[in-house]
């Protein structure tokens, strides 16, 4: 049975909530959107999109490795993402110079490809079929269970609580590492801590959105919000609003279509970013 659009929008909305899998997907999507929007806002501000992308592909070796040695895949996701975050733990605060950021990106790139190469090795050792790989990379939004929603909620609450706790020091450390250090803030801890939180958020999210698409939710709403405003509180709220709109709309459209959620979510995300950029250009031109 393929759901079709009726002329009455109310019936359509009701149809969205008839199936438990759809309710789970909407709940998971809502949690993921809020989590990714908040963590992503800091990530974009810190110019750590590359690190974010690297963490998001770490889900692949994590799951492949866990399958090989018979661990639950969730554990594999967290171990791989956390391990990569520790390896990439940068010394951003001491290296504002060009040469410093170079080594940082080389390390990130090397960690990323080593992780993927390891994942490929695990797959081939396990004689795994490729259908699994595609699910790993592109996710199954519509196959989320109750337990997964609950686990996601707990991780999201912990990560968001920790970010809220360190919100102001983290912001200062992001914008002006030198000033943060002068004030006696533990900059190295903040830097490593943020990467670990990013890793936890990515690991939780990518189980649902897939390794390649978690990145769209991290970067697009936040980048769009920062085009509109540089005020932190407003920007964070805007980023969350954008992310929720993107996920809800994407899931809603995907329900009535045969094509995957990931396509709609990334396309809407890109459209939101373009609109935000355009709005800024228009505002400036005046």
């Amino acid at each position, binding site marked *: 049975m393929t759901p079709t659009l009726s002329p009455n929008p109310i019936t359509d909305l009701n149809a969205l909530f008839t199936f438990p899998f759809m309710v789970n997907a909407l709940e998971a999507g809502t949690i993921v959107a809020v989590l990714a929007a908040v963590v992503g806002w800091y990530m974009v501000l810190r110019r750590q999109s590359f690190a974010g992308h690297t963490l998001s592909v770490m889900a692949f070796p994590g799951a492949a490795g866990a399958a090989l040695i018979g661990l639950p895949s969730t554990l594999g996701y967290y171990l791989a993402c956390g391990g990569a975050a520790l390896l990439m733990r940068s010394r951003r605060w001491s290296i504002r110079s060009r*040469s410093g950021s170079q080594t940082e990106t080389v390390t990130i*790139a090397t960690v990323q490809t080593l992780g993927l190469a390891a994942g490929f090795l695990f797959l081939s050792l396990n004689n795994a079929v490729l259908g699994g790989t595609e699910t790993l990379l592109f996710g199954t939004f519509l196959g989320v269970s109750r337990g997964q929603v609950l686990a996601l909620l707990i991780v999201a609450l912990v990560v968001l609580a920790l970010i809220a706790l360190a919100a102001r020091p983290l912001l200062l450390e992001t914008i002006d590492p030198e000033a943060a250090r002068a004030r006696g803030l533990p900059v190295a801890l903040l830097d490593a801590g943020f990467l670990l939180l990013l890793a936890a958020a990515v690991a939780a999210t990518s189980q649902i959105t897939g390794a*390649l*698409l978690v990145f769209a939710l991290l970067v697009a709403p936040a980048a769009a919000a920062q085009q509109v405003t540089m005020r932190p509180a407003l920007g964070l709220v805007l980023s969350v609003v954008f992310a929720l709109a993107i996920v809800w709309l994407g899931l809603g459209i995907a329900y009535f279509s045969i*094509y995957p959620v990931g396509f709609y979510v990334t396309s809407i995300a890109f459209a939101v970013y373009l609109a935000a950029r355009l709005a800024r250009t228009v505002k400036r031109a005046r």
Partner: protein
Amino acid sequence: MFTHEFVRNAYLAGTFIALACGITGWFVVLRGQLFAGDALTHVAFVGAIAAAVLGFDERVGLFVLTLLVAGGMALLGRRGQADDAVIGTVFAWILGIGVFLLAVLATSASGGTGVSAANTLFGSIYSLTPGGSRLAAAIGLAVALAILTALRPLLLATLDAELAVIRGIPARMLAVAFLVVLAVVTAESTQAVGALLLLGLLAAPGGAAHRLTTRPYRGIALSALIAVLAMWGGLALSYEIASLPPSSAIIGLAGAAYAAATVLTGSRAPNG
């Protein structure tokens, strides 16, 4: 092991691909464009799927899409260098299109896409045809020669753009040209080591060379040498150990070289 034709093909293509990656990678690291390289390699994957959907040769899709995106990134960004968030947003969207195209392929009559998707993602250097490997070697050599010809202006434009402009070097055009060359390297190497693993062959040898020496010529030579050695070693290892995929072995060796260089130079501030 050289009695097998497929091994000879792999070594021929692999050597020149590694040479091109090593030389280009040294500049990619110096110019801080690894994230752009990351984006391009993922775009290459989508290009290959797009070609499969439209029924073209895989290589057409690879080259067309990577060149288009490289051009777009060069034009959108200031001074030919796109912003972190711009790259991220654009390439997340292109990945989304890739997902869409995969679904189109899966629902279309012709099945069997899983294998070709895997080959694009992780490469299959041992399945190159003799003609394909000669073409790959020729393109790799051409890229290496192109960069070596423009070596001095490119170096100056990278290290001191303003001085380069004063000297009459078209720095912006060079930046665009460099991204185009990077796109060619990406599209070509995707067939050998795969879209997802190629970044390692760009980053690790270049990064190791930058750690070991500040001198440009020595650095470029060292980077090319590390890349070629990683390629040779990886191919030999995967030939001996059946369950080890060649791309994993190559990337493993390249990563080990970078790790060794990092340990050797210690926490001493790296040079650029």
